[in-house]
């Protein structure tokens, strides 16, 4: 996402990230990962629940990603900050997703990840922004 930020800005759009934690934890993670767009915290996970973002089981959290996509899973593990992942405010079983909202407040795109390696396609987000 960070590498294609200019394309979003070219569409007149803003990119933000939301994480399961405090605002300060979100800002620290953004700095650690060199993310320049705003990162917000949601320590109560209300936005995840309202959007219907799912949770995975133990198999989906551990073996399944390595069986389905070993290269990406090992790369994720290598660059992971396990202390941050173990935050008491973070639900490790919660899956991510993405949403595009237009200036009138209508949802133009909604992706609910089905697995830990199911990430929204940047091209799909850009298409939704027109």
């Amino acid at each position, binding site marked *: 996402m960070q590498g294609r930020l200019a394309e979003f800005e070219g569409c007149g759009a803003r990119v933000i990230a939301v994480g399961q934690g405090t605002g300060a934890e*979100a800002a620290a993670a953004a700095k650690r990962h060199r993310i320049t767009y705003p990162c*917000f915290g949601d320590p109560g996970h209300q936005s995840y629940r309202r959007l*219907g973002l799912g949770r995975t089981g133990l198999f989906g959290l551990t073996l399944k990603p390595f069986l389905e996509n070993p290269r990406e899973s090992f790369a994720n593990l290598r660059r992971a900050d396990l202390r941050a992942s173990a935050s008491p405010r973070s639900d490790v079983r919660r899956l991510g997703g993405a949403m595009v909202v237009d200036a009138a407040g209508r949802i133009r795109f909604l992706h609910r990840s089905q697995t830990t390696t199911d990430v929204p396609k940047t091209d799909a987000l850009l298409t939704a922004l027109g």
Partner: protein
Amino acid sequence: MPDLAVGDAAPDLELLDAEERPVALSTLWQQAPLALIFLRHFG
């Protein structure tokens, strides 16, 4: 609560900025269309 879908009004959720101040999503999308990425974790 019904499942949200494309075309629905987005929920005006409240998030926390770096100083732990609440920010309503609507104040952001009223400035510009928004692409929101929901992270699994901060790790």
